[in-house]
């Protein structure tokens, strides 16, 4: 009884399921169509597809796209925003920047709260927390009356400097809770007590906008699971790659906006770690874009700033995922200057690549792969339609002709450009984070990841590609690995020349108390709590940018503080060269951060079930085109038949249900004991 953990990823099109048998570690998987708008039927169907009875399940871990969808489709609650009087346009002004230099046709994404529902309230707190003006309750009463008459469902309250002193926000919340009992109300000092008014306001607004929708969704989810017969705990993966309870998600719904991608990165980090590769680049290539992220030392990189859209900022700590605008549906065109361009336009799911026969005529990456024999026209990509090679050729001919190339050469060219663009994206991401991609392994996920990974790794000088056993279920698998985790932050603003030790101690102690309480509420027992303390440090006078220095687990003394500054200086010396230390003499402790994690109560060590053949033979072969070698007879293997220890030299194709791994001449793949394909790039 209760011997399974179920991990679920609810995507826009499919719901992926992983069943994990706790004792044996055996993993099964299933895929069912997603069921918008509420997605719950698809989840229940998926559990049934795993052939599990409710009482066999001890824990359900869920990643869901519902929060993201609600924001993208703008189907959240009508929300009002209360700001400090005179500061009505903090949200609409955002950071006033644009994504490109020369595009006067660009428009910012519409804000989640309209200007007419943004109202000022008389109150003011100074930067040091002093209350300059108490909140005007009479004015607030008028505001409440106005909101009652509008059909708002939710209120976000974000006043200046509330991250230092949230007293006016708390008073407004208390008053409005009484006046507007049917409204979902959240305040910025509880949601994100961090300096910078736009970012804090935007995060609070996103939370308020999602609140009523997610509250309904999560209640219904709990009811439906109960009706299904499941009475154990259900947890949701948040953007930071940790789990939170449904209750916590009700209070912080904006925290789950990047649920799916975050879980995918955790999967890559864990697969890399268990294969002895702590540093990996995660690559998930889908239809319209590719997600790229880094894991160092087995941990996904986290960033504290995250934008859902260019000016929709949600600044909870989130797994650092970058998107490159290249995927299977990316369209190739010849421009007026005679150059071939690939992307960023995509054929998307509809009409999709030309070979889907759904009316698309423009050549895409998938069409090129089909023309070159890299995809099997009979495989149904991720359960979609079969592919038509003639249509693909006709589409590629549209670029071949003006370029005066054969269809084959044009298809090869298209893929070269796509690969180069993607390699540039990965290189840029690594440089931004201060890493060299050549020291990493590449973990390939998604329907198109394993198809492109080996060529991409060669381009980047990455020696090895790992194709997990279930590359199409990265996010579901990631949810299996994810543990309860929460992040806490509080501003310090103390400098090296004069700091208040007592205050630093108090802030850290307070964060620790909050962290323990939160973990306890989520069912983590005292002995299983892991708290990681760190402090952000920067040069005094710098307004942005900081380095996270770990804070040792002992009493905080002046020596501790000194050691933090020393560690910071060492770090600086490595990135700037030693001269930089001459220049700066004063440093600032910016924020204290605590990452609180539940220790693994259950060790997750998945064992995948395949149908190994002692000496697997190719199931067939076909002509595949490789750059430099031309058309080669290429053996086709079935992934489930390959036993641990099996090794094959390229050219070869390894097919499985939802993806195809391409090994070019010169590469070699070996199946490791966890059934990962480890592909050595020559």
């Amino acid at each position, binding site marked *: 009884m209760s011997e399974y953990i179920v991990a679920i990823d609810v995507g826009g099109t499919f719901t992926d399921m992983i069943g994990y048998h706790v004792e044996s570690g055996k993993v099964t998987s299933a895929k069912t169509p997603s069921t918008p708008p509420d997605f719950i039927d698809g989840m229940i169907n998926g559990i049934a597809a795993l052939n599990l009875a409710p009482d066999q399940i001890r824990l359900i871990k869920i990643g869901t796209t519902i929060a993201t969808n609600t924001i993208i489709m703008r189907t959240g609650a009508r929300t009002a925003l209360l700001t400090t009087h005179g500061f009505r346009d903090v949200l609409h002004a955002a950071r006033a920047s644009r994504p490109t*230099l020369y595009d006067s046709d660009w428009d910012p994404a519409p804000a989640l709260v309209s200007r007419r529902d943004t109202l000022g309230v008389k109150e003011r707190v100074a930067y040091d927390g002093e209350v300059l003006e108490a909140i005007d309750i009479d004015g607030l009463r008028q505001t409440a009356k106005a909101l009652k008459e509008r059909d708002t469902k939710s209120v976000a309250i974000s006043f200046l400097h509330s991250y230092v002193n949230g007293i006016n926000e708390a008073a407004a919340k208390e008053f409005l809770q009484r006046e507007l009992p049917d409204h979902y109300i959240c305040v910025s000092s509880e949601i994100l007590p961090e300096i910078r008014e736009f970012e804090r306001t935007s995060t609070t607004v996103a939370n308020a906008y999602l609140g009523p929708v997610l509250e309904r969704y999560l209640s219904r989810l709990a009811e439906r699971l109960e009706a299904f017969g499941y009475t154990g705990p259900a947890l949701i993966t948040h953007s930071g790659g940790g789990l939170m309870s449904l209750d916590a998600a009700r209070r912080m719904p904006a925290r789950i906006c990047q649920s799916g991608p975050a879980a995918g990165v955790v999967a890559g980090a864990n697969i890399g770690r268990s294969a002895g590769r702590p540093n990996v680049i995660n690559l998930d290539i889908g239809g319209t874009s590719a997600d790229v992220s880094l894991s160092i030392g087995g941990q996904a990189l986290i960033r504290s700033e995250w934008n859902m859209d260019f000016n929709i900022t949600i600044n909870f700590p989130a797994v650092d995922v970058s998107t490159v605008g290249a995927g299977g549906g990316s369209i190739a065109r010849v421009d007026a200057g005679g150059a071939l361009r690939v992307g960023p336009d995509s054929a998307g799911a509809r009409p999709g690549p030309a070979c889907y026969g759904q009316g698309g005529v423009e050549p895409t990456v998938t069409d090129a792969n089909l023309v070159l024999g890299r995809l099997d026209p009979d495989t149904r990509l991720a359960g979609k339609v079969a592919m038509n090679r003639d249509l693909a050729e006709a589409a590629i001919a549209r670029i071949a002709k003006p370029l005066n190339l054969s269809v084959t050469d044009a298809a090869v060219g298209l893929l070269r450009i796509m690969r180069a663009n993607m390699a540039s994206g990965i290189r840029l991401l690594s440089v931004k984070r201060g890493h060299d991609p050549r020291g990493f392994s590449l973990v390939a996920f998604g329907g198109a990841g394993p198809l492109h990974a080996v060529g991409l790794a060669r381009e980047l000088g990455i020696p090895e590609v790992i194709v997990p056993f279930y590359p199409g279920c990265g996010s579901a698998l990631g949810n299996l690995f994810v543990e309860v985790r929460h992040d806490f932050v509080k501003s310090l603003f103390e400098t090296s020349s004069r700091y208040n030790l007592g205050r630093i101690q108090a802030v850290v102690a307070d964060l620790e108390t909050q962290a323990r309480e939160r973990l306890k509420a989520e069912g983590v027992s005292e002995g299983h709590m892991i708290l990681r303390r760190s402090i952000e440090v920067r040069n005094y006078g710098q307004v942005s940018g900081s380095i996270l220095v770990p804070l040792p687990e002992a009493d905080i003394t002046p020596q501790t503080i000194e050691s933090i500054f020393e560690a910071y200086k060492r770090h600086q010396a490595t990135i700037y060269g030693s001269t930089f230390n001459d220049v700066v003499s004063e440093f600032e402790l910016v924020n204290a951060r605590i990452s609180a994690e539940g220790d693994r109560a259950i060790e997750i060590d998945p064992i995948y079930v395949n149908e190994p053949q002692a000496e697997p033979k190719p199931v067939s072969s076909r002509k595949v085109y490789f750059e430099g070698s031309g058309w080669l007879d290429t053996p086709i293997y079935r992934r489930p038949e390959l036993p641990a220890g099996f090794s094959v030299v390229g050219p070869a194709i390894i097919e499985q249900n939802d993806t195809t791994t391409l090994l070019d001449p010169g590469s070699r793949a070996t199946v490791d004991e966890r059934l990962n394909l480890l592909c050595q790039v020559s």
Partner: protein
Amino acid sequence: MKLDPITFEVLRNALSNMCDEGSEMIARLAYAATISEGHDHSCAILNRKGHLIAHGNRDQAPHIGSFEPSVAVIKDWFPVMDPGDVYIFNDPYSGGIHTNDVKLIRPIFYKGEVVAFNCSTGHWPDVGGALPGSFNPRAVDCYSEGIRIPPMKIFRGEELDRTVVTLIEYNMRNGRERLADVYAQYRSGILMEERLCDMLDRHGIDVVEQLFDDVIEYTETMFRKEVAELPDGTFEFEDFSDRDVMHPDQPRIRVHCKMTIAGDRVSFDYRGSDPAPRGPFGFPRGSLETAIFDGTLHCFPHLAPLNRGLSRGIEVISTPGSCVDIVEPTPVSGYACGAYEKVAAVTMACWAQAFSSVNPRRMYAAGINLANLCIGGVHPKTGRPFVNYLWNEGGQGARSYKDGNSFQMMIFIGGATNQPVEILERWYPLLYTHCEAVKDSSGDGEYRGGLGIDRSFKALGEITMTMHGDRGEVTPFGLAGGTNGGANILNLHRNADSEETHLGMHAMGITLSPGDHVIYRSNGGGGFGNPLKRDPALVLADVEDGWVSPEKARDVYGVIVLRDDAQQGRFHIDTPATLAKRHELSGRKVNRGYGFGEVHPLGETVTIIERSKVA
């Protein structure tokens, strides 16, 4: 194009991506907030002849035309270069931009010979001169605007030259910090060399040099093809600056352009512009070209990033000594809000006329201009000296098919951001009273400009304040009958004094005492088309959102918006009264002029011409 199109595309993207990497590295390593936070930095590759091949996609547009003149000077001064040599340079007249933009130039060696150049620019927060920040609205020559660094070898065989560094350190405020910025630009140059040599190893020198030629030819071909599709002819436009800072009684400064299209050739003749004024307004010839490229790229955004191909397709004519082609020692520090913004906007208005019958979507009214507010003093709480620049976002000009956006940065610094009030209040003795749209500040039209912002504040200590801006009187122009946008405003409301005094865009050495209220508001964008043709539903929505008052809706748009319920913020349109009002207003005389709410006399003539009527 001689390379095969696939190799071309792969390598062309790789070039621009390596510039992005280099630019990113500058931002990550620099100490100056203008660079790390304001992203005022750039990174480029030029071929061995010194022709621009590629730059970063998020670089600052005003830097871009200064790369070629700067590398030309270095080549001229140093006929012999050795591996590991790096040059520093910031002279405005030969380099084509103001002194704060300091360049590091690295010849890139491959197999013992120079095959290319890397040029990076960082806007250093201070390069000396009379005032902190080196901007000096009172300057009548360049000698009070900071140190001019001639071409100098700052690294000799990767060895830092202490003498050069010390010269810099001695002449700038916080000079030691600049060492970190030198290193940021230097390390970025090494990265660029690694990346380019990697490409050379893989593809060989012949392919890469062919690529350089092809990139230029490709852009030139694309550009000329599109110019050829525009009607031949001469298109003129002009705009003005409020005044000469150091000669306020003189007439407004005129910036005039005659653009001529003949076949696939285009020329910009700026000889109709006024002579250089005494105060800082103008810029050297290099910046004139940059500003023309900047305006042009806004109308041809798909041709970015810039390279030699675009500049080869454009002829620029100017008179040395005029305000758009200044000569030593005319001051230059105020060029961005002065000549640069005017030339970019005037260039776009010339293109708008050429596009008016072919592709009216490429017609843009003028938008927000910079109003640099420098504050300095000693913080009363910390006792530390401080200096900082404040600026405002504001209204974008209307598009021919849609309103301009509110709260945008100037068109020439799209990558920059505003400064959070919470950060400013923590570092400086300021207490802000507003971050809110200036209601009714848009230029009006069938499509209106974006709104300006009010970022007024109170002083909490003794503060010295200097304003250097423009468009306080001659505001961002509208097109096709749209009105000019709202003014940049700087007023002062003294604590005890009940009168608000007008300080304007060229206020110098104002001393603030605690409690003084500084009213600081920005431009709204110019409008496009006749306001009486604006969809009444859009006017209603603007009133409901509080961007436009019911009074302005009535008087300017002829739309009678009535209040249902003030509490709920509901309004409705009185349709019969609106029809009557619009009929009444349709006979009104057009109020021509250069100020807010007036119709720019030339802008009025720039209208959409239906294609069918052209033939």
